[in-house]
């Protein structure tokens, strides 16, 4: 904990700041921890989907830890506070569980791209895995203020990892809980109930946050259903501010080429239909430039289910974007390579190719309906994903969406 007094801030008049923040409260919620801090400038500038970087004091730790913003408060007695939710699973997050009220912590934020908000009336479905649901509650408040219908699917491995069940009920037209062990809600995974909820909620737009295997499954199903999907991904982060190029995600551009985008400045929110899930963590997975070819590889990928190992993927309760300790690698494919032959990039996005991933016991066992073309959703100031978005601006309505 810093000797500095809380409230010390440095930065520009817009964009992220570096702030020493007094801890207002720290409490348990189920299996998780919730930390509230006084961070006026961050609270004023934050939007749902963004994250903060917190300096931790584990033994010999060097790097900050990223945490999704779970809530900001701009009015009332606790105005100017920011909440984060985390799971203690590494030296950094373990240290953070010992932070006391009135301690001062060292925070940078808000960082990253927010969830883009739709310009037209559309029913929204928020799908959260584990405490990945937390930033979606924050998003739900923005969507509700726009008069949009919000449904939720809140999934976790087990009951104590269902985060904020009461809040979910308060914020949604309907909420469906799933646990893998059946201790709360229906037994299974979020994708087991996705079709039904989409049907009853007449969903036109899906937002998801949680472990990457869940995001992949949700994205692939949404593509099949022709529903736009926005996901907040997780990838190991070094700096969180765009300079180290650690946290890259393969993103398939409109030109069919796959490019590595930084989850910290060009994400963490991406169009789920454009994430190259098959190419993530795969040598040669991103091959953008014309004339730049991927290393020659065996083309077993077509025959083999893409990621058999993800059948044993971590339960949905694993950390979502920014869970502290540079996260354990998500059950990555053990295939040494896929077959990203030049010019085939767009094929990776063909919905049909994802049906082979049924080993994950999600989407419909029976033959899926033919994919529908995705509906077009116009978002507020949503830039083309080909160009890095100025992270200060996207999605910003003229006035702050929250409690304004």
């Amino acid at each position, binding site marked *: 904990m810093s000797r500095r*007094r809380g409230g010390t801030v440095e930065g*520009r008049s817009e964009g992220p700041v570096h702030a020493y923040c007094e801890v207002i409260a720290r409490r348990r919620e189920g299996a998780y921890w919730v930390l509230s801090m006084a961070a006026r400038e961050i609270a004023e500038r934050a939007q749902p989907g963004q994250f903060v970087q917190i300096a931790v004091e584990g033994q010999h730790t060097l790097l900050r830890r990223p945490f999704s913003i779970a809530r900001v408060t701009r009015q009332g007695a606790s105005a100017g506070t920011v909440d984060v939710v985390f799971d203690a699973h590494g030296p950094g997050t373990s240290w953070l569980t010992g932070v006391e009220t009135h301690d001062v912590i060292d925070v940078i934020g808000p960082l990253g791209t927010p969830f883009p908000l739709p310009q037209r009336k559309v029913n929204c479905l928020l799908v959260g895995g584990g405490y990945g649901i937390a930033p979606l509650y924050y998003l739900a408040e923005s969507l509700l203020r726009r008069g949009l219908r919000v449904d939720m699917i809140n999934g976790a491995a087990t009951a104590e990892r269902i985060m904020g069940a009461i809040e979910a009920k308060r914020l949604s037209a309907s909420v469906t809980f799933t646990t893998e062990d059946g201790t709360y809600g229906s037994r299974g995974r979020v994708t087991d109930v996705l079709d039904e909820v989409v049907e009853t909620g007449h969903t036109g737009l899906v937002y998801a946050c949680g472990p990457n295997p869940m995001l992949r499954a949700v994205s692939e199903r949404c593509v099949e259903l022709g529903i736009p999907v926005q996901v907040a991904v997780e990838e190991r982060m070094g700096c969180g501010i765009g300079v180290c190029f650690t946290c890259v995600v393969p993103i398939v551009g409109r030109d069919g080429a796959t490019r590595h985008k930084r989850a910290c400045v060009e994400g963490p929110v991406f169009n789920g239909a454009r994430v190259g899930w098959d190419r993530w963590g795969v040598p040669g997975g991103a091959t953008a430039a014309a004339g730049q070819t991927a290393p020659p590889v065996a083309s077993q990928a077509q025959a083999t289910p893409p990621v058999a190992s993800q059948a044993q993927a971590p339960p949905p309760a694993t950390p979502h974007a920014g869970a502290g300790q540079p996260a354990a690698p998500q059950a990555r494919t053990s295939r040494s390579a896929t077959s990203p032959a030049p010019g085939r990039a767009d094929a990776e996005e063909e919905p049909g190719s994802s049906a082979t991933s049924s080993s994950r016991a999600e989407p419909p066992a029976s033959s899926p309906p033919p994919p529908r073309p995705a509906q077009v959703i116009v978002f507020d100031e949503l830039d083309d994903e080909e160009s890095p978005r100025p992270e200060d601006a996207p999605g910003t309505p003229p006035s702050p969406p929250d409690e304004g």
Partner: protein
Amino acid sequence: MSDEVRMIPSDQLPGWGRKRGGPAGAAADAELGHAADRGRDHDQPDEVRVVGGRGAGAGHTGPAGPDAEVVGATRRVLDPGDIDLSVRPAGIELPNPITSASGCFASGAEIDRFHDVADLGAVVVKSITLEPRQGLPAPRMAETPSGMLNAIGLQNPGVEAWIAKDLPWLRERGVRVIASVAGRTADDFAQVASALSEVAGDTIVALEVNLSCPNVEDRGLVFACSAPDSAEVVRGVVRAAQVPVFAKLTSDVTDIVEIARSVVAAGADGLTLINTLLGMAIDPETGRPELANTYGGLSGPAIRPVAVRNVHQVHSALPEVPIIGCGGVRTVTDVVQFLRAGASAVAIGTTTFVDPFIAPRVVDGLARWCAERGIAAVSELIGATAPVHPR
């Protein structure tokens, strides 16, 4: 761009603030860096004695005290605002000796969200290759004790896109740019150097030849492991360049002085020492390497002593060759160590990841550090070491 706003008076921001000599000054060194400092290996307390550098009786000193005949011992405390921070490595005029380290500052605009990057002596941009590169797959990073491993694989937009997109912004902001050049072949390097030289103007003040990125497909491509290969690359770049050329070397060699001599003989105007050290981390449970690339470059405070040693070794052998020192710099006293070891400028890398304000913080802190010791010009510190056993 927005104006820079200091929302809190600078005297409440230890180690930060243009108001030099403010009440925060004395505590600057201890306060530098960020919260992670608290787990740090405590730096040596500031030395009391003052040893002048070149032109100031370098190398002859003793402990400070009323009787000691020490250059600078009788100096009085100066105003930090009066300290001459400028340095001239290889003839490049830099207003202060602090630069970014290549690959740790992206294009510059990312950090400019926090502060004006033109405040740095120079910005060393992420290495530029002839063709765009998407780099290596994730995971690209693993944290290690007081450091980190990375295997990025030189992801960059390629020289054409860099000139079209990044350079105009840097030029408009008045940033002094040291452009880092990388490639697979000596000819790649020369072509990039040539393209950059055509557009250098006043903005690109030097080129840095990245001979030593450890994250290449083939270790045989680490040019800096071979004196003749390094020399060949440097020769091509020097021929194409119209600005001073720095060669960035690795410590992962038997004799770095031999490599240094070869690149200087090939025409390099200066050296950047050092790149990351090749390392590895293994997940103890799964047995899998932590990095998709298996091996990666180790950076951060963990490598600082290695870097200081390399600078000292090369400076001792080639005292006339300017050096940009690099490796694990986190505090003002780290900078002073590199200057004393023989560096004319000091690059900050990994620390930027945890503290985007580290460069201006260190620039201000360096002025105060010098002022408190009566050192009027930071250049006096370059190469100013004392004998282990004072006479």
